[in-house]
Protein backbone atom coordinates (compact mmCIF):
# COMPACT_ATOMS: atom_id res chain seq x y z
CA UNK A 1 0.00 0.00 0.00
CA UNK A 2 1.42 3.36 -0.85
CA UNK A 3 1.75 6.20 1.59
CA UNK A 4 0.89 8.85 -0.94
CA UNK A 5 -1.98 9.13 -3.29
CA UNK A 6 -1.97 11.12 -6.41
CA UNK A 7 -4.34 13.99 -6.52
CA UNK A 8 -6.15 13.82 -9.80
CA UNK A 9 -5.71 17.36 -10.96
CA UNK A 10 -8.25 19.50 -12.64
CA UNK A 11 -6.99 20.17 -16.08
CA UNK A 12 -8.68 21.79 -19.08
CA UNK A 13 -9.70 18.42 -20.55
CA UNK A 14 -11.39 17.43 -17.31
CA UNK A 15 -13.16 20.77 -17.04
CA UNK A 16 -14.42 20.33 -20.58
CA UNK A 17 -15.58 16.80 -19.74
CA UNK A 18 -17.47 18.02 -16.67
CA UNK A 19 -19.02 20.92 -18.56
CA UNK A 20 -20.24 18.57 -21.29
CA UNK A 21 -21.59 16.22 -18.65
CA UNK A 22 -23.48 18.98 -16.83
CA UNK A 23 -24.76 20.33 -20.16
CA UNK A 24 -25.89 16.86 -21.21
CA UNK A 25 -27.78 16.31 -17.94
CA UNK A 26 -29.52 19.69 -18.17
CA UNK A 27 -30.38 19.09 -21.83
CA UNK A 28 -31.92 15.73 -20.93
CA UNK A 29 -33.95 17.09 -18.01
CA UNK A 30 -35.14 20.07 -20.03
CA UNK A 31 -36.12 17.87 -22.99
CA UNK A 32 -38.02 15.48 -20.70
CA UNK A 33 -39.93 18.08 -18.70
CA UNK A 34 -40.72 20.38 -21.62
CA UNK A 35 -41.82 17.52 -23.90
CA UNK A 36 -43.76 16.00 -21.00
CA UNK A 37 -45.55 19.26 -20.17
CA UNK A 38 -46.41 19.98 -23.81
CA UNK A 39 -47.58 16.47 -24.71
CA UNK A 40 -49.32 15.76 -21.39
CA UNK A 41 -50.73 19.09 -20.13
CA UNK A 42 -52.47 17.35 -17.19
CA UNK A 43 -49.17 15.95 -15.83
CA UNK A 44 -47.89 17.66 -12.68
CA UNK A 45 -44.38 19.08 -12.59
CA UNK A 46 -43.47 16.89 -9.58
CA UNK A 47 -44.24 13.74 -11.55
CA UNK A 48 -42.27 14.98 -14.56
CA UNK A 49 -39.27 15.84 -12.37
CA UNK A 50 -39.32 12.50 -10.53
CA UNK A 51 -39.49 10.63 -13.82
CA UNK A 52 -37.02 12.86 -15.68
CA UNK A 53 -34.40 12.54 -12.92
CA UNK A 54 -34.99 8.77 -12.64
CA UNK A 55 -34.61 8.04 -16.32
CA UNK A 56 -31.63 10.42 -16.60
CA UNK A 57 -29.76 8.62 -13.79
CA UNK A 58 -30.63 5.20 -15.20
CA UNK A 59 -29.43 6.24 -18.67
CA UNK A 60 -26.14 7.52 -17.19
CA UNK A 61 -25.71 4.21 -15.35
CA UNK A 62 -26.03 2.38 -18.66
CA UNK A 63 -23.41 4.67 -20.17
CA UNK A 64 -21.06 4.07 -17.22
CA UNK A 65 -21.46 0.31 -17.51
CA UNK A 66 -20.86 0.37 -21.28
CA UNK A 67 -17.70 2.50 -21.20
CA UNK A 68 -15.51 -0.27 -19.73
CA UNK A 69 -16.16 -2.90 -22.39
CA UNK A 70 -16.32 -0.25 -25.17
CA UNK A 71 -12.77 0.85 -24.31
CA UNK A 72 -11.57 -2.73 -24.24
CA UNK A 73 -13.07 -3.25 -27.69
CA UNK A 74 -11.97 0.05 -29.21
CA UNK A 75 -9.47 2.55 -27.73
CA UNK A 76 -11.35 5.38 -29.45
CA UNK A 77 -13.64 5.46 -26.43
CA UNK A 78 -10.80 5.94 -23.92
CA UNK A 79 -11.46 9.68 -23.41
CA UNK A 80 -14.89 8.74 -21.97
CA UNK A 81 -13.27 6.51 -19.39
CA UNK A 82 -10.75 9.11 -18.38
CA UNK A 83 -13.15 10.81 -15.98
CA UNK A 84 -15.67 8.06 -15.38
CA UNK A 85 -15.67 8.81 -11.66
CA UNK A 86 -17.27 12.19 -12.19
CA UNK A 87 -19.85 10.42 -14.30
CA UNK A 88 -20.50 8.04 -11.39
CA UNK A 89 -20.81 10.77 -8.77
CA UNK A 90 -23.09 12.81 -11.05
CA UNK A 91 -25.30 9.77 -11.62
CA UNK A 92 -25.50 9.20 -7.86
CA UNK A 93 -26.52 12.82 -7.19
CA UNK A 94 -29.28 12.68 -9.83
CA UNK A 95 -30.56 9.37 -8.44
CA UNK A 96 -30.48 10.89 -4.94
CA UNK A 97 -32.58 13.85 -6.13
CA UNK A 98 -35.07 11.37 -7.64
CA UNK A 99 -35.23 9.42 -4.36
CA UNK A 100 -35.70 12.57 -2.24
CA UNK A 101 -38.43 13.95 -4.50
CA UNK A 102 -40.16 10.54 -4.44
CA UNK A 103 -40.04 10.33 -0.65
CA UNK A 104 -41.36 13.88 -0.27
CA UNK A 105 -44.09 13.32 -2.84
CA UNK A 106 -45.28 9.88 -1.78
CA UNK A 107 -44.50 9.75 1.94
CA UNK A 108 -44.36 13.18 3.56
CA UNK A 109 -47.17 15.06 5.38
CA UNK A 110 -48.78 11.82 6.56
CA UNK A 111 -49.39 10.08 9.84
CA UNK A 112 -45.96 8.34 9.85
CA UNK A 113 -42.33 9.35 9.50
CA UNK A 114 -41.59 9.36 5.73
CA UNK A 115 -38.66 6.94 6.03
CA UNK A 116 -40.67 4.53 8.18
CA UNK A 117 -43.46 4.86 5.63
CA UNK A 118 -41.01 3.99 2.82
CA UNK A 119 -39.87 0.86 4.67
CA UNK A 120 -43.29 -0.33 5.84
CA UNK A 121 -45.80 1.22 3.41
CA UNK A 122 -46.07 -1.95 1.33
CA UNK A 123 -45.32 -5.39 2.75
CA UNK A 124 -46.43 -7.58 -0.16
CA UNK A 125 -43.03 -9.21 -0.46
CA UNK A 126 -44.63 -12.48 -1.53
CA UNK A 127 -46.19 -10.95 -4.66
CA UNK A 128 -44.24 -10.10 -7.80
CA UNK A 129 -46.60 -7.50 -9.34
CA UNK A 130 -47.26 -5.86 -5.94
CA UNK A 131 -43.65 -6.12 -4.62
CA UNK A 132 -42.42 -2.91 -2.86
CA UNK A 133 -40.14 -1.84 -5.73
CA UNK A 134 -39.18 1.31 -3.81
CA UNK A 135 -37.03 -0.79 -1.47
CA UNK A 136 -35.00 -2.14 -4.40
CA UNK A 137 -34.32 1.49 -5.39
CA UNK A 138 -33.30 2.27 -1.81
CA UNK A 139 -30.85 -0.67 -1.71
CA UNK A 140 -29.33 0.45 -5.02
CA UNK A 141 -29.07 4.02 -3.74
CA UNK A 142 -27.13 2.83 -0.66
CA UNK A 143 -24.63 0.97 -2.87
CA UNK A 144 -24.26 3.95 -5.21
CA UNK A 145 -23.71 6.17 -2.17
CA UNK A 146 -20.90 3.95 -0.85
CA UNK A 147 -19.24 4.01 -4.25
CA UNK A 148 -19.58 7.77 -4.70
CA UNK A 149 -18.33 8.41 -1.15
CA UNK A 150 -15.22 6.25 -1.62
CA UNK A 151 -14.49 7.40 -5.15
CA UNK A 152 -11.55 9.60 -4.13
CA UNK A 153 -8.05 8.13 -4.40
CA UNK A 154 -7.61 8.58 -0.67
CA UNK A 155 -10.01 5.66 -0.21
CA UNK A 156 -8.34 3.72 -2.96
CA UNK A 157 -5.04 3.73 -1.13
CA UNK A 158 -6.65 3.23 2.29
CA UNK A 159 -8.72 0.25 1.22
CA UNK A 160 -6.05 -1.16 -1.18
CA UNK A 161 -6.88 -1.37 -4.88
CA UNK A 162 -8.13 -4.96 -4.55
CA UNK A 163 -10.78 -4.20 -1.91
CA UNK A 164 -11.65 -0.92 -3.63
CA UNK A 165 -12.16 -2.70 -6.93
CA UNK A 166 -14.34 -5.33 -5.23
CA UNK A 167 -16.44 -2.60 -3.59
CA UNK A 168 -16.86 -0.90 -6.92
CA UNK A 169 -17.98 -4.13 -8.58
CA UNK A 170 -21.10 -3.46 -6.46
CA UNK A 171 -22.26 -1.32 -9.38
CA UNK A 172 -23.40 -4.55 -11.05
CA UNK A 173 -25.48 -5.47 -8.00
CA UNK A 174 -26.96 -1.96 -7.99
CA UNK A 175 -27.76 -2.35 -11.70
CA UNK A 176 -29.59 -5.62 -11.03
CA UNK A 177 -31.57 -4.04 -8.18
CA UNK A 178 -32.54 -1.12 -10.40
CA UNK A 179 -33.75 -3.44 -13.17
CA UNK A 180 -36.07 -4.83 -10.46
CA UNK A 181 -37.00 -1.30 -9.31
CA UNK A 182 -38.08 -0.40 -12.84
CA UNK A 183 -39.76 -3.69 -13.88
CA UNK A 184 -41.71 -4.08 -10.63
CA UNK A 185 -42.46 -0.34 -10.44
CA UNK A 186 -42.96 1.85 -13.49
CA UNK A 187 -43.39 -1.06 -15.90
CA UNK A 188 -46.35 -2.32 -13.82
CA UNK A 189 -48.15 1.01 -14.26
CA UNK A 190 -47.17 2.06 -17.75
CA UNK A 191 -49.17 0.60 -20.60
CA UNK A 192 -46.92 1.59 -23.51
CA UNK A 193 -44.77 -1.34 -24.80
CA UNK A 194 -42.09 1.24 -25.63
CA UNK A 195 -40.90 1.19 -22.00
CA UNK A 196 -40.50 -2.61 -21.94
CA UNK A 197 -38.64 -2.40 -25.26
CA UNK A 198 -36.26 0.35 -24.08
CA UNK A 199 -35.51 -1.42 -20.78
CA UNK A 200 -34.86 -4.70 -22.60
CA UNK A 201 -32.61 -2.92 -25.12
CA UNK A 202 -30.60 -1.41 -22.25
CA UNK A 203 -30.06 -4.79 -20.58
CA UNK A 204 -29.13 -6.37 -23.91
CA UNK A 205 -26.58 -3.68 -24.76
CA UNK A 206 -24.89 -3.81 -21.33
CA UNK A 207 -24.63 -7.62 -21.19
CA UNK A 208 -23.82 -7.90 -24.90
CA UNK A 209 -20.87 -5.50 -24.69
CA UNK A 210 -19.50 -7.24 -21.59
CA UNK A 211 -19.74 -10.64 -23.27
CA UNK A 212 -18.14 -9.33 -26.48
CA UNK A 213 -15.21 -7.72 -24.62
CA UNK A 214 -14.67 -10.80 -22.45
CA UNK A 215 -14.81 -13.10 -25.45
CA UNK A 216 -12.32 -11.04 -27.41
CA UNK A 217 -9.87 -10.98 -24.52
CA UNK A 218 -10.18 -14.71 -24.03
CA UNK A 219 -9.42 -15.27 -27.68
CA UNK A 220 -6.36 -13.00 -27.44
CA UNK A 221 -5.21 -14.85 -24.34
CA UNK A 222 -5.62 -18.20 -26.01
CA UNK A 223 -3.87 -17.10 -29.18
CA UNK A 224 -0.84 -15.88 -27.30
CA UNK A 225 -0.79 -18.02 -24.21
CA UNK A 226 2.53 -19.82 -24.25
CA UNK A 227 3.35 -22.47 -21.71
CA UNK A 228 5.86 -21.08 -19.23
CA UNK A 229 8.83 -23.40 -19.20
CA UNK A 230 11.62 -21.04 -18.41
CA UNK A 231 11.81 -20.23 -22.09
CA UNK A 232 11.70 -16.81 -23.68
CA UNK A 233 8.72 -16.42 -25.96
CA UNK A 234 8.85 -14.37 -29.17
CA UNK A 235 6.92 -11.11 -29.19
CA UNK A 236 7.47 -9.43 -32.57
CA UNK A 237 10.25 -7.74 -34.54
CA UNK A 238 11.56 -4.79 -32.52
CA UNK A 239 10.85 -2.49 -35.48
CA UNK A 240 7.15 -3.27 -35.21
CA UNK A 241 6.80 -1.49 -31.88
CA UNK A 242 6.34 2.27 -32.43
CA UNK A 243 8.69 4.52 -30.45
CA UNK A 244 7.48 5.20 -26.86
CA UNK A 245 4.67 2.69 -27.30
CA UNK A 246 4.11 -0.91 -26.31
CA UNK A 247 3.08 -4.25 -27.70
CA UNK A 248 0.82 -6.18 -25.33
CA UNK A 249 0.82 -9.92 -24.96
CA UNK A 250 -0.47 -12.55 -22.61
CA UNK A 251 1.81 -15.40 -21.57
CA UNK A 252 1.58 -17.85 -18.69
CA UNK A 253 -1.57 -16.07 -17.54
CA UNK A 254 0.35 -12.76 -17.25
CA UNK A 255 -0.55 -9.67 -19.23
CA UNK A 256 2.69 -8.05 -20.29
CA UNK A 257 3.42 -4.71 -21.96
CA UNK A 258 6.68 -4.58 -23.96
CA UNK A 259 7.81 -0.96 -24.46
CA UNK A 260 10.23 0.50 -26.98
CA UNK A 261 11.96 3.79 -26.12
CA UNK A 262 15.36 5.38 -26.92
CA UNK A 263 16.22 2.26 -28.96
CA UNK A 264 15.74 0.14 -25.86
CA UNK A 265 13.18 -2.56 -24.96
CA UNK A 266 11.70 -3.16 -21.47
CA UNK A 267 8.75 -5.27 -20.37
CA UNK A 268 6.49 -4.57 -17.39
CA UNK A 269 3.13 -5.85 -16.19
CA UNK A 270 0.25 -4.50 -18.25
CA UNK A 271 -1.85 -3.97 -15.11
CA UNK A 272 -1.79 -0.53 -13.47
CA UNK A 273 -1.65 -0.51 -9.67
CA UNK A 274 -4.26 2.19 -9.50
CA UNK A 275 -7.35 0.60 -11.01
CA UNK A 276 -5.94 -2.08 -13.28
CA UNK A 277 -5.76 0.24 -16.28
CA UNK A 278 -3.98 -1.18 -19.38
CA UNK A 279 -0.44 0.26 -19.19
CA UNK A 280 0.37 -1.10 -22.66
CA UNK A 281 -2.18 1.31 -24.12
CA UNK A 282 -0.32 4.24 -22.60
CA UNK A 283 2.80 5.89 -23.95
CA UNK A 284 6.15 6.89 -22.56
CA UNK A 285 6.33 10.58 -21.64
CA UNK A 286 9.46 12.12 -20.04
CA UNK A 287 10.90 8.66 -19.54
CA UNK A 288 7.86 7.27 -17.71
CA UNK A 289 5.11 4.94 -18.85
CA UNK A 290 1.86 6.90 -18.30
CA UNK A 291 -1.30 4.93 -17.59
CA UNK A 292 -3.97 5.93 -20.12
CA UNK A 293 -6.72 5.90 -17.52
CA UNK A 294 -5.67 8.35 -14.81
CA UNK A 295 -2.05 9.09 -15.52
CA UNK A 296 -0.14 7.00 -12.95
CA UNK A 297 3.52 6.79 -13.98
CA UNK A 298 6.04 3.93 -13.95
CA UNK A 299 9.69 3.70 -14.99
CA UNK A 300 9.91 1.16 -17.82
CA UNK A 301 13.11 -0.54 -16.61
CA UNK A 302 12.11 -1.04 -12.95
CA UNK A 303 8.27 -0.91 -12.95
CA UNK A 304 8.47 1.55 -10.03
CA UNK A 305 6.67 4.88 -9.86
CA UNK A 306 9.03 7.84 -9.69
CA UNK A 307 9.47 9.20 -6.12
CA UNK A 308 7.61 10.19 -3.98
CA UNK A 309 5.12 7.61 -5.25
CA UNK A 310 5.48 4.01 -4.24
CA UNK A 311 3.43 1.96 -6.69
CA UNK A 312 5.38 -0.88 -8.31
CA UNK A 313 4.50 -3.39 -11.00
CA UNK A 314 6.28 -6.63 -11.98
CA UNK A 315 9.04 -6.52 -14.62
CA UNK A 316 10.00 -9.20 -17.17
CA UNK A 317 13.35 -10.15 -18.70
CA UNK A 318 13.73 -9.35 -22.41
CA UNK A 319 16.16 -10.35 -25.18
CA UNK A 320 16.61 -9.37 -28.81
CA UNK A 321 17.67 -12.02 -31.29
CA UNK A 322 18.03 -11.24 -35.02
CA UNK A 323 15.87 -8.15 -34.54
CA UNK A 324 13.06 -10.12 -32.83
CA UNK A 325 12.03 -9.28 -29.26
CA UNK A 326 11.66 -12.15 -26.78
CA UNK A 327 10.26 -11.95 -23.26
CA UNK A 328 10.53 -14.36 -20.30
CA UNK A 329 6.97 -14.56 -18.94
CA UNK A 330 8.05 -15.35 -15.36
CA UNK A 331 7.51 -12.09 -13.44
CA UNK A 332 10.31 -10.54 -11.40
CA UNK A 333 9.20 -9.04 -8.06
CA UNK A 334 7.49 -5.65 -8.54
CA UNK A 335 10.04 -2.86 -8.75
CA UNK A 336 12.98 -5.09 -9.82
CA UNK A 337 15.23 -3.09 -12.14
CA UNK A 338 16.30 -5.06 -15.23
CA UNK A 339 18.80 -3.90 -17.84
CA UNK A 340 16.82 -2.96 -21.00
CA UNK A 341 17.67 -4.85 -24.20
CA UNK A 342 19.33 -2.62 -26.77
CA UNK A 343 18.19 -2.45 -30.37
CA UNK A 344 21.33 -2.63 -32.56
Amino acid at each position, binding site marked *: MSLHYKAIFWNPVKKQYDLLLAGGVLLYLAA*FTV*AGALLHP*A*ATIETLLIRGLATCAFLLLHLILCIGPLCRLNP*RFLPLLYNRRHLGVTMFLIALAHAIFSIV*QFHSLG*DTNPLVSLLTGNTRFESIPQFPFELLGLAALVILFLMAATSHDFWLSLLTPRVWKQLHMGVYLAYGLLIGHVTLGALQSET*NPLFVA*ITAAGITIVTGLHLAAGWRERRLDQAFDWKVSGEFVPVCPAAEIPANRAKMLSAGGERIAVFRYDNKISAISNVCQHQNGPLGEGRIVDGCVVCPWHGYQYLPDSGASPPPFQEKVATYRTRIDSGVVYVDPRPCPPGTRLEPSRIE
Partner: protein
Amino acid sequence: MRTTVVCLLGFGALLAILLAAGQRPFAPSKFEFGVFRIYNGIAEQTPVPSMISGGERYLLVGPGKRGATEMAPPGRALPVELQGSLIERGSTRMLEVLPGSWKPAGPEGRSTPAVSEGVHTFTGEIVDSKCYLGVMNPGEGKVHRQCAARCISGGVPAAIAANGGLILLTGPDDRPLSRELSPYAGERVTIRGELIRLGQLQILRADPASITRE
Protein backbone atom coordinates in the same frame (compact mmCIF):
# COMPACT_ATOMS: atom_id res chain seq x y z
CA MET B 1 -14.34 12.21 -30.37
CA ARG B 2 -16.43 15.25 -31.20
CA THR B 3 -18.83 13.08 -33.24
CA THR B 4 -19.13 10.58 -30.39
CA VAL B 5 -20.04 13.36 -27.93
CA VAL B 6 -22.54 15.02 -30.29
CA CYS B 7 -24.14 11.63 -30.99
CA LEU B 8 -24.41 10.85 -27.27
CA LEU B 9 -26.02 14.23 -26.50
CA GLY B 10 -28.44 13.95 -29.41
CA PHE B 11 -29.32 10.38 -28.48
CA GLY B 12 -29.96 11.44 -24.86
CA ALA B 13 -32.28 14.30 -25.85
CA LEU B 14 -34.16 12.09 -28.31
CA LEU B 15 -34.62 9.38 -25.70
CA ALA B 16 -35.86 11.98 -23.19
CA ILE B 17 -38.55 13.15 -25.63
CA LEU B 18 -39.51 9.57 -26.52
CA LEU B 19 -39.85 8.57 -22.85
CA ALA B 20 -41.74 11.73 -21.94
CA ALA B 21 -44.13 11.26 -24.86
CA GLY B 22 -44.74 7.57 -24.18
CA GLN B 23 -46.00 8.04 -20.63
CA ARG B 24 -49.46 6.68 -19.89
CA PRO B 25 -52.06 9.44 -20.49
CA PHE B 26 -52.78 11.59 -17.43
CA ALA B 27 -56.35 11.94 -16.15
CA PRO B 28 -57.93 15.36 -16.74
CA SER B 29 -58.13 16.63 -13.17
CA LYS B 30 -57.48 19.84 -11.30
CA PHE B 31 -55.92 20.95 -8.01
CA GLU B 32 -55.79 24.66 -7.19
CA PHE B 33 -52.61 24.19 -5.21
CA GLY B 34 -52.04 27.05 -2.74
CA VAL B 35 -55.19 28.92 -3.86
CA PHE B 36 -57.65 29.13 -0.95
CA ARG B 37 -61.17 30.47 -1.51
CA ILE B 38 -63.91 31.07 1.06
CA TYR B 39 -66.81 28.60 1.04
CA ASN B 40 -70.05 29.01 3.04
CA GLY B 41 -72.47 26.15 3.50
CA ILE B 42 -73.70 23.18 5.46
CA ALA B 43 -71.01 20.65 6.52
CA GLU B 44 -71.63 17.03 7.49
CA GLN B 45 -69.28 14.56 9.19
CA THR B 46 -70.94 11.36 8.04
CA PRO B 47 -70.95 9.20 6.03
CA VAL B 48 -67.84 11.05 4.76
CA PRO B 49 -66.87 14.64 5.61
CA SER B 50 -68.49 16.90 3.00
CA MET B 51 -70.28 20.22 2.60
CA ILE B 52 -72.92 21.76 0.37
CA SER B 53 -72.05 25.24 -0.82
CA GLY B 54 -73.77 27.15 -3.61
CA GLY B 55 -75.79 24.07 -4.50
CA GLU B 56 -72.68 21.90 -5.04
CA ARG B 57 -71.47 19.12 -2.76
CA TYR B 58 -67.76 19.11 -1.94
CA LEU B 59 -65.86 16.33 -0.16
CA LEU B 60 -63.65 17.72 2.62
CA VAL B 61 -60.08 16.63 3.41
CA GLY B 62 -57.22 18.03 5.47
CA PRO B 63 -53.80 19.19 4.28
CA GLY B 64 -51.14 16.69 3.14
CA LYS B 65 -52.12 13.09 3.63
CA ARG B 66 -54.80 13.85 6.26
CA GLY B 67 -58.55 13.63 6.44
CA ALA B 68 -60.86 16.40 7.69
CA THR B 69 -62.45 14.38 10.49
CA GLU B 70 -60.33 16.04 13.17
CA MET B 71 -61.23 19.57 11.97
CA ALA B 72 -64.97 19.21 11.82
CA PRO B 73 -66.76 19.11 15.16
CA PRO B 74 -69.02 16.05 15.21
CA GLY B 75 -72.67 16.74 14.62
CA ARG B 76 -74.92 16.73 11.63
CA ALA B 77 -75.53 19.55 9.21
CA LEU B 78 -73.51 22.41 10.70
CA PRO B 79 -73.48 25.76 8.90
CA VAL B 80 -69.80 26.71 8.44
CA GLU B 81 -67.49 29.11 6.74
CA LEU B 82 -64.11 27.75 5.69
CA GLN B 83 -61.27 28.30 3.26
CA GLY B 84 -60.39 25.55 0.86
CA SER B 85 -58.40 24.65 -2.27
CA LEU B 86 -60.49 23.11 -5.02
CA ILE B 87 -59.75 19.58 -6.25
CA GLU B 88 -61.83 18.34 -9.18
CA ARG B 89 -62.07 15.34 -11.48
CA GLY B 90 -65.09 14.90 -13.71
CA SER B 91 -68.16 15.94 -11.75
CA THR B 92 -66.66 15.12 -8.34
CA ARG B 93 -65.36 18.06 -6.29
CA MET B 94 -63.34 18.18 -3.10
CA LEU B 95 -61.86 20.90 -0.89
CA GLU B 96 -58.55 20.75 0.94
CA VAL B 97 -59.53 22.71 4.06
CA LEU B 98 -57.04 25.30 5.33
CA PRO B 99 -56.32 24.37 8.96
CA GLY B 100 -57.79 26.90 11.38
CA SER B 101 -60.16 28.39 8.81
CA TRP B 102 -63.20 26.31 9.89
CA LYS B 103 -65.75 28.60 11.62
CA PRO B 104 -69.26 27.63 12.81
CA ALA B 105 -71.70 30.01 11.12
CA GLY B 106 -75.02 29.32 12.78
CA PRO B 107 -77.28 26.81 14.49
CA GLU B 108 -77.66 23.23 13.25
CA GLY B 109 -79.41 22.94 9.91
CA ARG B 110 -81.14 20.17 8.05
CA SER B 111 -79.05 17.29 6.70
CA THR B 112 -79.63 15.81 3.27
CA PRO B 113 -81.09 12.33 3.37
CA ALA B 114 -78.92 9.62 1.87
CA VAL B 115 -80.76 7.38 -0.59
CA SER B 116 -80.07 3.64 -0.42
CA GLU B 117 -79.63 1.89 -3.77
CA GLY B 118 -79.41 -1.69 -2.49
CA VAL B 119 -76.55 -4.16 -2.13
CA HIS B 120 -73.86 -4.06 -4.82
CA THR B 121 -70.48 -5.63 -5.58
CA PHE B 122 -67.67 -3.59 -7.16
CA THR B 123 -64.34 -4.64 -8.66
CA GLY B 124 -61.61 -2.04 -9.09
CA GLU B 125 -58.55 -0.39 -7.59
CA ILE B 126 -58.50 0.84 -3.99
CA VAL B 127 -57.42 4.51 -4.11
CA ASP B 128 -57.38 7.47 -1.77
CA SER B 129 -60.01 9.96 -2.94
CA LYS B 130 -57.74 13.01 -2.55
CA CYS B 131 -54.92 11.96 -4.88
CA TYR B 132 -57.31 10.26 -7.30
CA LEU B 133 -59.37 13.42 -7.73
CA GLY B 134 -56.32 15.43 -8.77
CA VAL B 135 -53.81 16.23 -6.05
CA MET B 136 -51.43 13.81 -7.69
CA ASN B 137 -51.38 12.83 -11.29
CA PRO B 138 -51.21 9.86 -11.57
CA GLY B 139 -53.11 9.32 -8.31
CA GLU B 140 -53.56 5.59 -8.91
CA GLY B 141 -51.62 2.53 -10.05
CA LYS B 142 -48.55 0.69 -8.77
CA VAL B 143 -46.24 3.72 -8.67
CA HIS B 144 -48.71 5.53 -6.43
CA ARG B 145 -49.45 2.56 -4.15
CA GLN B 146 -47.45 3.60 -1.08
CA CYS B 147 -48.81 7.14 -1.25
CA ALA B 148 -52.39 5.87 -1.38
CA ALA B 149 -51.69 3.64 1.63
CA ARG B 150 -50.32 6.65 3.54
CA CYS B 151 -53.30 8.87 2.63
CA ILE B 152 -55.91 6.24 3.54
CA SER B 153 -54.11 5.54 6.80
CA GLY B 154 -54.03 9.30 7.50
CA GLY B 155 -57.81 9.62 7.21
CA VAL B 156 -58.38 10.60 3.57
CA PRO B 157 -61.56 8.71 2.59
CA ALA B 158 -60.74 5.46 0.80
CA ALA B 159 -62.53 4.73 -2.44
CA ILE B 160 -62.72 2.17 -5.19
CA ALA B 161 -62.15 3.29 -8.78
CA ALA B 162 -64.60 1.07 -10.64
CA ASN B 163 -66.68 1.27 -13.82
CA GLY B 164 -64.97 4.55 -14.73
CA GLY B 165 -66.24 6.27 -11.58
CA LEU B 166 -65.29 6.73 -7.96
CA ILE B 167 -67.20 5.03 -5.15
CA LEU B 168 -66.26 6.14 -1.65
CA LEU B 169 -65.93 3.44 0.99
CA THR B 170 -67.01 3.56 4.64
CA GLY B 171 -67.71 0.93 7.25
CA PRO B 172 -71.27 -0.33 7.91
CA ASP B 173 -71.53 2.19 10.78
CA ASP B 174 -70.03 4.99 8.61
CA ARG B 175 -66.72 4.59 10.46
CA PRO B 176 -63.73 5.35 8.15
CA LEU B 177 -61.98 2.15 7.03
CA SER B 178 -58.42 3.62 7.24
CA ARG B 179 -56.76 0.70 8.98
CA GLU B 180 -58.62 -2.04 7.14
CA LEU B 181 -58.15 -0.66 3.62
CA SER B 182 -54.65 0.85 3.61
CA PRO B 183 -52.99 -2.59 3.03
CA TYR B 184 -55.03 -2.93 -0.18
CA ALA B 185 -54.09 0.49 -1.57
CA GLY B 186 -53.24 0.41 -5.27
CA GLU B 187 -54.53 -3.15 -5.68
CA ARG B 188 -57.51 -4.46 -7.60
CA VAL B 189 -60.11 -5.94 -5.26
CA THR B 190 -63.74 -6.95 -5.13
CA ILE B 191 -65.84 -5.47 -2.35
CA ARG B 192 -69.54 -5.71 -1.43
CA GLY B 193 -71.90 -3.49 0.53
CA GLU B 194 -74.90 -1.19 0.56
CA LEU B 195 -74.64 1.55 -2.06
CA ILE B 196 -75.97 4.92 -0.99
CA ARG B 197 -76.24 8.13 -2.96
CA LEU B 198 -75.66 11.54 -1.41
CA GLY B 199 -76.18 14.21 -4.05
CA GLN B 200 -73.65 13.36 -6.80
CA LEU B 201 -71.59 11.18 -4.42
CA GLN B 202 -71.74 7.39 -4.45
CA ILE B 203 -70.80 5.73 -1.18
CA LEU B 204 -70.51 2.03 -0.41
CA ARG B 205 -71.16 1.03 3.21
CA ALA B 206 -68.90 -1.99 2.94
CA ASP B 207 -68.10 -4.84 5.25
CA PRO B 208 -64.28 -4.86 5.28
CA ALA B 209 -64.41 -8.66 5.70
CA SER B 210 -66.01 -8.95 2.25
CA ILE B 211 -62.91 -7.64 0.46
CA THR B 212 -60.99 -10.07 -1.77
CA ARG B 213 -57.94 -9.49 -3.95
CA GLU B 214 -58.60 -10.10 -7.59
